[in-house]
C-alpha cells in the first residue's frame, strides 16, 4: 500500500541467499512459538527440545529410526512434489500410502508361498498400482471437468484409512493376534532386506532411486519439461500444444504410485503385516517437506531427514507427558513461517516510506 510503513521492492531474480536462510529461520521461529506453548502448559521448552534432540542423535537406535521414518517421508514427499509442480494439489498421499500398503499386503497374504524374488517385485507392483489408482480416481474428474482435487484427494484419505481399518478389524484380522487390529505376519519372503542391526530397509534405496529418476525426468526429458512449463505458466503450456489433461492424469498416477511405494515399503520393511494406523500422517508431513524443499528431489531427501528427526524426537518425549500433537503443531508452524518468509526471496523489504515514483 502506498505510503505505508513497510514497502516491498520486487527482486529481479529470486534471492539465492534467502532460499537457504528462510527455511532455517522458519524452523527457528517455529521452535520459538512451540516453546511458548510448551512453557505455557508447564513444560520447560529447552529441556523438551534437548530431550528431543537426544532422542534422535543420542543413540544408534535414534539415528537409525530417523533414517527408517525418513523413507516413507521421502517417497510421499517426492510423490506430492511432482503433482505440486503442475499445480495439482494432491493432498491424498496419506490415502495413497494406505492403498499401497493394502495392495502389497494383499499379495503377501494371498500368495504366502511365493519365493522372495517373485514376492517382493509382485508386492512392489501391487503397491504402486494401488497407490496410482487411488490417485487416478480424483485425477479423472479433475482432468475432465476441473473438479477440485484438493477436496477429492483428501476425502479419499478418509475412505482409504477406513478401508484398511475394515480389513484389519474384520476379515484380515490375525486370529492369533490377541484381537489387535492387525493381520497375520507376512512370510519371510515378503520382508525387505535390512542393514544388519537396524531397521533401515531396502526402501531407502527405492527412495533414493526414485529421487534420481524424478530429477532426470524433470530436467532431461520432454515430459519433464512439459510438467515444469505446465506448472510455471499454464497458459504458455496450452499454446505450446501440451496436452494438459493427459499430463494431469499421468502426473497424478506417478504421484500416487510413489506414495503407494511408500506404503509397500513400510509394510514389507517395517511392520511385516498390515495394521491399524500404519502412517502417523506421513502423507500430510510430505506436503510440508515438498514445499520446504521447493519441490526439488534432492532437497526433499534432505528435508525428509529433518522432519523424520522431528517425529522420532517427538516420540522420545511422549513418555515425559509431552503431547503427541506437539510435532504436528511444530510442523504447521514451520510451514507458516516458510510461507511468510517466501516473500523475502522475491521482494526486498524496506522500512519507512518509499520515495514517490
Amino acid at each position, binding site marked *: *500500500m*502506498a505510503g505505508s510503513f513497510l514497502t516491498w521492492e*520486487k527482486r529481479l531474480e529470486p534471492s539465492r541467499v534467502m532460499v537457504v536462510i528462510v527455511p532455517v529461520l522458519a524452523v527457528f521461529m517455529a521452535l520459538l512459538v512451540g516453546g511458548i*506453548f510448551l512453557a505455557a*502448559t508447564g513444560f520447560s521448552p529447552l529441556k523438551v527440545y534437548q530431550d528431543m534432540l537426544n532422542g534422535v542423535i543420542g543413540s544408534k537406535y535414534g539415528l537409525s529410526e530417523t533414517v527408517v521414518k525418513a523413507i516413507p517421508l521421502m517417497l510421499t514427499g517426492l510423490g506430492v512434489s511432482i503433482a505440486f509442480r503442475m499445480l495439482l*494439489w494432491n*493432498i491424498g498421499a496419506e490415502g495413497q500410502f494406505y492403498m499401497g500398503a493394502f495392495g502389497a499386503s494383499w499379495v503377501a497374504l494371498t500368495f504366502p508361498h511365493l519365493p522372495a524374488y517373485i514376492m517382493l517385485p509382485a508386492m512392489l507392483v501391487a503397491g504402486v498400482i494401488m497407490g496410482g489408482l487411488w490417485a487416478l480416481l480424483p485425477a479423472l*474428474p479433475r482432468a475432465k*471437468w*476441473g*473438479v*477440485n482435487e*484438493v*477436496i*477429492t484427494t*483428501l*476425502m*479419499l484419505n*478418509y*475412505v482409504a484409512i*477406513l*478401508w484398511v*481399518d*475394515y480389513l484389519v*478389524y*474384520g476379515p484380515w484380522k490375525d486370529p492369533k493376534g490377541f484381537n489387535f487390529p492387525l493381520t497375520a505376519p507376512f512370510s519371510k519372503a515378503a520382508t525387505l532386506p535390512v542393514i544388519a542391526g537396524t531397521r533401515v530397509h531396502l526402501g531407502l534405496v527405492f527412495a533414493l532411486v526414485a529421487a534420481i529418476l524424478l530429477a532426470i525426468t524433470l530436467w532431461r526429458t520432454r515430459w519433464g519439461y512439459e510438467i515444469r512449463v505446465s506448472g510455471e505458466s499454464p497458459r504458455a503450456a496450452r499454446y505450446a500444444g501440451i496436452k494438459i489433461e493427459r499430463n494431469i492424469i499421468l502426473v497424478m498416477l506417478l504421484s500416487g504410485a510413489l506414495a503407494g511405494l511408500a506404503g509397500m515399503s513400510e509394510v514389507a520393511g517395517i511392520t511385516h503385516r498390515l495394521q491399524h494406523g500404519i502412517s502417523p500422517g506421513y502423507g*500430510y508431513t510430505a*506436503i*510440508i517437506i515438498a*514445499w520446504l524443499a521447493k519441490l526439488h528431489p534432492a532437497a526433499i531427501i534432505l528435508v525428509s531427514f529433518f522432519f523424520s528427526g522431528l517425529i522420532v524426537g517427538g516420540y522420545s518425549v511422549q513418555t515425559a507427558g509431552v*503431547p*503427541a*500433537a*506437539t*510435532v*504436528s*503443531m*511444530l*510442523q*504447521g*508452524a514451520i*510451514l*507458516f513461517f516458510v*510461507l*511468510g518468509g*517466501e*516473500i523475502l526471496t522475491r521482494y526486498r523489504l524496506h522500512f519507512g516510506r518509499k520515495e514517490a515514483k
Partner: protein
Amino acid sequence: MENSVWIAALAAAITAGTPILYAALGEILAERAGVLNLGVEGMMLVGAVSGFMVAVRTGSPWLGFLVALLAAGFTAAIFAFLTITLRANQVVTGLALTIFGTGLSGFLGKPYVGVPLPVSFKAVAIPGLANIPFIGPVLFRHDPLVYLTYILVPCLWYYFYRTRPGLNLRAIGENPAAADALGVNVFALRYLYVIMGGMLAGAGGAFLSLAYAPSWLENMTAGRGWIAVALVIFAVWDPVKALLGSYLFGGVDALTYTLQAATKISIPSFFLKMLPYVLTLVVLIIATRQTLVKHIGAPGALSIPYDREER
C-alpha cells in the same frame, strides 16, 4: 408413528448439519471476497478446543462460544496476513493452517480429553412455534446455536444481494482491481471477511464440542471442515443453498449413526463411516459439472492474491 420417525430424522439432520453450516457460511464469506481458505478444518478444531477449555473452566458455554470465535478468528488473521499482505500461496497456507490447527488443538486439548462439560448448550423449545405440528419439533426444539444459524442465513443472503457493502464484498472477489479503482479498500475488506469467516468456522467447531458431542476429542471434526469447503462449491457460494446442503450432509451423518445403532443391519460400520466422504466426492463432481454447464462458478478472483502494482 411414521411421522415421529421422520421428525426425529429431520431434527437430527439439522443438528448434525449445523457445524458444517457454520463452517460453510464462513468459507462463503472468505471466498466471496476472493480468498480461498482451506484451513477450515484447522480453524474448527481451534474453535472446538478453545471453546471447550473455557466452558469447562468457567462453566459458561456462552463464554466458551465467544472465545472459540476469537481464537479461530485469530488463526484466520494469521492466514490473512500470510495470503493477503505477504501474498503467500493460498492453497498451501490453508493446508498449513489445517495442520497447525490440528496440532495446536491436540496439544492444548490433551488434558481435556474425557473431561465432562459442566454445562452444555441445551435444547430450548421456542414457545408457540415448537407446537406447530411436524414443523415445530423438526425446527424449533434445538439449542440456541442452531437458532442462531436460522437468523444468520437470511441475514447473509440479504447482505450479499441487497446491500451496498455486500455488493462491495462480491466486487472484491470478482474484480478487485475495478473495486479498488472505485475506492473500495480491497485489502482491509479481505482481512475483515477472512477473519469473520474464521470466526464462523470456530463457531462450527464450538457447536461440536459444546452442544453436539458435548466433549473434546482430538480431531473431533473428522473432516467436516473439508466437507464444508466442498459444500461451498455445491451451494454455488449462496448461503441459502449452503443451508440445504448442510442439512443433506447432516442427514447422512445422522443416518450413519442410526444405522450403526440398529443392530439388525449388518453393514460393517467402516463402510457407513465412509458415506459422508464418498457423498462429498460424488456431490462435488456433480456440482462442478453443473457449474460448467450453467456457466456459474467461483468468484472471478478466487485464490488470486491482489497486487496493486500488477494491475
